[in-house]
């Protein structure tokens, strides 16, 4: 009977969805019946129901398609790693691309890379999501219509011929080009025309530094800053740990001087002067709130004092009143002077005279060629604002015949949008290489989309002498074409990008390394990702002191100064379409999906503003913008700060992101964009684009716009009215000073009663094998949030949209807790990565009714998603609040982006709990790999995603039972502490106490 039922079932695969229904059964199958049909059916029904019970629920048929011809070395299910170069920004960090079954999935830092040292920022991590973006152009466009490459090539070649004949001006605008091959290709292309020029335009430019060096060293170079050589770092506004020039490299270098040990209680001294509260400022030992317009004043005083210490004449010029106390200046000058040759003064001012002063100070301190390398300069910012402004004038005058723009959105990022657009319309040929319909591309006659960096061959030379390769990791998804090939076509060449690159390396790179056959050299270069070559040194003159003059500090009146900055993890408009980065909370403000005006609490009080109130920003030149307010402690009272790179064309697509339900609000209201473009506020002065705009009025405009913040409460200090006596501040962040640390390496331990580790019950669980643990050095962690995206990419963490973030339901497994401490507007900042602590006495495990979360015998708190029924009891009972619940089914706004999913990690459905698993898939992979080699797991072979990419190398993970492991060592560190230790949760995650190089009673803040 059972069999017959099964057979019936098997025959009808078409009906396989349903089970065999008792009513449909043919009674005659069961054999001769001794009684009536009706009675038979009664009995048969019962029997059949038994039979069908065991025949129910067949899974749908799954077709498995093997290769026809399996490519050599390709094993389905195995991940392969390719060396490449990150193209997220011109910093060009080393990249390892993890490719699984033909899909690049996970970006990791390249540990051997001399600049990034294994680190990778959030933008680099988020590259694959940008790759699988259906909004990227898949075909070239002519006048906004899809067309073929042949037609485009034909038209452009024809128009170029006309331009050539008419001797028209050809202008080629790019963002900083670090690729020597592309640079050569552009030069070769332009060489065909009489009036041709390559204009480099950086959306956030450092042009003044280069121009200042042209003055002082007769070479327009950007020094290569070596923060690992610097004992004293004084930065004026430069957010070098966050966004400035090459943040990953700088973080990696900076952290090497931030690890005092018991034996060597030494660390660098980092002072930050800034108007807004930047990521770097938050990590400084001493931070001065100083309006950017006052940088010159302080630098003038510093230069004067240092000149006296050096026994030289101070620079000419009037010395205005110092914005900070003379004793402070003297103290700082002394520190700098003592660290001659191992100190560094950095400044992000776009005022050339200020930068000249900075050069002078660095020169006085003999820092050149020690902490600032201009023999092997950096190529990471080459923007020339004077050229750009010149181009704008040319455009307005209609003097440009052909305009090419690559790697930047020319109109979005420049202030005078309308005039430029009008100028562009006068040109004969306007070509954009943009990968999507950006602001400029919509004005261009032709859009010739370049490949995504993960699809194309290219190279980079971020610092003279370090040449790296960027290799494709999959076939192009659309019909895009490498810019190298496009330029070749229009020059009448038909070479592929690969050929062009190889030819360029044969000619330009091979001669710069020790002689060897090209193929061997090339193979090694592609394998390693980079080569060290002899740098082509610029001709640098001696320091020309006659260019130096003191700068008059402009009195900062009652008007506000607006500081335009780049948000960490988004920088300019290029990545605005990346939902991971849009949802990445700003490390300091913790706001997602918006830009806003940061004002200090004092200013907010004066203007009667609170978070979310719309404020109108008006410059004295008449441009204005209306944005929500964010009250930001630590900000200068006369400075407002707004992030650039928002209001990007096409971001209205995010109206579809996140769950849709009765009370749900769209991330972007219809017709709106994510944030607002504030490029219109940029001023031009002295041939530079100025991101500091003074003479601004702020007025409350009445409306509101809710900001989506991932953190509601901001300080360790609990609200005064509910603070119990003696427990006003929680000792969650433990901090000490270098001075105290040198005396007692345990300094900073709170004076709490600890009852030891005694257990009330029998100790049944001894971890005899591995015991995974993690230690995070709070002294190194800058809060840059790269780990957050690394985790999101590795663990298939969904994007939830603005409304869900506003409801405190973001899904990131790592939360970067940010606390302010200190009184009033002068605050000190602490960052603390917070993920599942894998407690040995985990409160979450006890309460789960269905055993969905239990403890593994290697110390991991495991979450079996498929068992979870979603009571949320575990999340309630988690003292660290690190569990994340799938409130909805978070479908992607762009279905193509499902390709970014890591097949090693289950995608969670609605209604289940999830949390940091300590990358258990990597642990299992590492263990299996070791078992196959028949050897024990080697410390460092298993790395969590967050650890791998941490630019500061603040995260150590490993087997605590292995006495040789780094994590074991870190657990022995006197700075080690565990959070909420007094509750005996026994977490497997620990922190290393933060040590600040400041005086004991010093809040780290100085009122100006």
């Amino acid at each position, binding site marked *: 009977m059972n069999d017959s039922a099964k057979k019936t079932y098997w025959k009808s695969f078409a009906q396989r969805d349903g089970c065999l229904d008792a009513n449909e059964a043919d009674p005659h199958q069961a054999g001769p019946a001794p009684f009536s049909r009706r009675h038979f059916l009664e009995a048969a029904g019962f029997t059949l129901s038994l039979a069908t019970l065991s025949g129910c629920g067949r899974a749908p048929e799954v077709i498995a398609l093997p290769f026809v011809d399996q490519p050599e070395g390709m094993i389905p299910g195995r991940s392969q790693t390719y060396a490449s170069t990150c193209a997220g920004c011109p910093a060009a960090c080393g990249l390892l691309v993890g490719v699984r079954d033909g899909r690049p999935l996970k970006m990791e830092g390249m540990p051997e890379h001399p600049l990034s040292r294994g680190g990778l920022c959030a933008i680099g991590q988020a590259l694959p999501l940008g790759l699988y973006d259906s909004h990227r152009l898949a075909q070239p466009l002519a006048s906004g219509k899809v067309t073929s490459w042949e037609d485009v090539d034909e038209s452009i070649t024809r128009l170029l011929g006309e331009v050539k004949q008419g001797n028209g001006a050809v202008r080629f605008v790019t963002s900083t080009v670090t690729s020597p091959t592309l640079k050569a290709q552009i030069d070769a292309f332009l060489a065909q025309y009489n009036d041709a020029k390559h204009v480099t335009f950086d959306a956030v430019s450092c042009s003044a530094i280069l121009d200042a060096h042209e003055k002082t060293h007769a070479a327009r170079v950007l020094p290569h800053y070596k923060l690992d050589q610097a004992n004293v770092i004084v930065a004026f506004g430069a957010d070098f740990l966050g966004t400035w020039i090459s943040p990953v490299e700088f973080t990696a270098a900076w952290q090497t001087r931030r690890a005092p040990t018991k034996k060597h209680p030494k660390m660098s001294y980092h002072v930050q002067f800034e108007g807004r509260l930047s990521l770097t400022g938050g990590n400084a030992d001493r931070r001065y709130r100083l309006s950017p317009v006052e940088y010159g004043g302080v630098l003038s005083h510093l230069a004067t004092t240092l000149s006296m210490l050096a026994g030289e004449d101070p620079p000419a010029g009037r010395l205005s009143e110092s914005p900070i106390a003379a004793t402070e200046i003297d103290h700082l000058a002394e520190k700098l002077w003592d660290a001659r040759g191992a100190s560094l003064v950095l400044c992000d001012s776009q005022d050339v005279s200020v930068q000249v002063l900075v050069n002078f100070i660095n020169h006085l301190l003999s820092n050149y060629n020690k902490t600032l390398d201009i023999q092997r300069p950096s190529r990471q910012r080459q923007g020339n604002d004077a050229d750009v402004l010149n181009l704008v004038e040319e455009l307005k005058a209609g003097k440009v015949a052909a305009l090419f723009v690559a790697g930047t959105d020319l109109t979005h990022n420049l202030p005078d949008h309308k005039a430029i657009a009008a100028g562009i319309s006068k040109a004969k040929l306007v070509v954009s290489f943009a990968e999507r319909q950006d602001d400029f591309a919509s004005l261009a006659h032709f859009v010739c989309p370049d490949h995504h960096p993960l699809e194309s061959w290219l190279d980079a030379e971020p610092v003279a002498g370090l040449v790296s390769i960027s290799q494709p990791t999959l076939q192009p998804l659309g019909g895009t074409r490498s810019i190298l090939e496009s330029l070749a076509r229009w020059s009448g060449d038909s070479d592929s990008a690969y050929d062009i690159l190889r030819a360029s390396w044969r000619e330009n790179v091979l001669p710069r390394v020790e002689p060897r056959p090209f193929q061997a050299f090339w193979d090694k270069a592609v394998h390693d990702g980079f080569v060290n070559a002899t740098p082509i040194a610029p001709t640098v003159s001696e320091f020309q002191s006659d260019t130096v003059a003191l700068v008059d500090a402009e009195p900062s009146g009652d008007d506000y100064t607006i500081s335009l900055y780049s948000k960490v993890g988004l920088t300019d408009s290029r990545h605005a379409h990346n939902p991971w980065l849009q949802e990445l909370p700003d490390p300091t403000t913790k706001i997602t999906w918006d830009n806003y005006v940061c004002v200090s609490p004092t200013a907010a009080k004066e203007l009667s503003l609170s978070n979310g109130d719309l404020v109108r920003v008006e410059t004295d030149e008449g441009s204005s913008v209306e944005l929500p307010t964010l009250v930001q402690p630590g900000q200068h009272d006369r400075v407002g700060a707004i992030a650039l790179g928002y209001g990007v064309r096409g971001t209205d697509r995010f109206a579809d992101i996140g769950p849709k339900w009765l009370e749900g609000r769209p991330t972007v209201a219809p017709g709106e964009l994510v944030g607002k473009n504030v490029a219109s506020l940029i001023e031009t002065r002295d041939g530079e684009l100025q991101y500091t705009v003074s003479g601004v009025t702020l007025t409350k405009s009445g409306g509101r716009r809710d900001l989506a913040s991932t953190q509601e409460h901001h300080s360790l200090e609990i609200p005064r009215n509910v603070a119990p006596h003696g427990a006003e501040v929680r000792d969650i962040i433990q901090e000490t000073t270098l001075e105290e640390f040198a005396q007692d390496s345990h300094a900073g331990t709170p004076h709490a009663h600890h009852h030891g580790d005694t*257990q009330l*019950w*029998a100790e*049944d*669980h001894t971890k005899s094998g591995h015991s995974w643990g993690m230690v995070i050095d709070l002294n190194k962690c800058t809060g840059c949030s790269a780990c957050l995206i690394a985790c999101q990419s590795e663990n298939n963490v969904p994007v939830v949209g603005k409304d869900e973030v506003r409801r405190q339901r973001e899904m990131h497994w790592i939360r970067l807790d940010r606390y302010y401490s200190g009184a009033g507007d002068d605050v000190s900042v602490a960052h603390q990565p917070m993920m599942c602590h894998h*407690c*040995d*006495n*985990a*409160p*979450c*495990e*006890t309460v789960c009714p269905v*055993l969905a979360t*239990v*403890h*593994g*015998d290697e110390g991991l708190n495991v979450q079996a998603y498929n068992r979870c029924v979603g009571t949320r009891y575990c999340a309630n009972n988690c003292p660290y609040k690190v569990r994340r619940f799938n409130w909805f089914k978070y479908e992607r706004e762009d279905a193509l982006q499902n390709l970014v999913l890591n097949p090693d990690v289950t995608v969670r459905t609605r209604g289940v709990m999830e949390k940091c698993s300590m990358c258990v898939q990597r642990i299992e992979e590492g263990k299996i790999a070791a078992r196959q080699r028949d050897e024990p797991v080697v410390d460092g072979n298993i790395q969590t995603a967050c650890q791998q990419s941490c630019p500061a190398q603040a995260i150590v993970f490993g087997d605590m039972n292995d006495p040789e492991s780094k994590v074991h060592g870190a657990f022995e560190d006197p700075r080690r502490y565990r959070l909420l230790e007094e509750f005996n949760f*026994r977490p497997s995650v620990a922190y290393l106490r933060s040590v600040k190089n400041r005086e004991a009673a010093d809040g780290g803040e100085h009122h100006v």
Partner: protein
Amino acid sequence: MSDRVLLATFEHEDDLLAATDAVRRSGFKIVDAFTPYAVHGLERAMGLRPSRLTWVCFLCGMIGVLGMLWFEHWSTSIDWKLDVGGKPWNSLPSDVPVAFEAAVLLAGFGSVFALLAVSRLFPGKQPQIINPRVTDDRFLLVIDEADAGFDTAAVRKMLQEFHALAVEEKITLPGGDLQ
């Protein structure tokens, strides 16, 4: 039990109690009494022994508590040992609540089902209703007439003394089930 029984109807429980007591003392066999509510003292008057359902209850409760304790122990520390929150494999205190609930559940259901079984109560049962007012305001006493020396008239008279509203003779149904 013979076929013939004597039915006495009363209006008050006091009368029923007294009559029952008297009838039993006189040596007659009382088949049953029917009352609209539980009349206290009637069981003594009728000479019934206390119910043994308490033992059923106790037994079921014990099965519940021991069975559940065993299952909890077996499933958490023998069948598959899982480390839950660092607690010991066999954590007796946490087994108590469920074991208790199981005991109550089994004891409760056990005794109720035992009651229904012993009293032969089940859905759809059609009892013989002697007097429909017995569930409202009448008290009935049923006396067996089996005794050879049963003097119907004397008994009638005796019952009248206790304010019996009516006394009548009835023949039981086949099967002897009067209920």
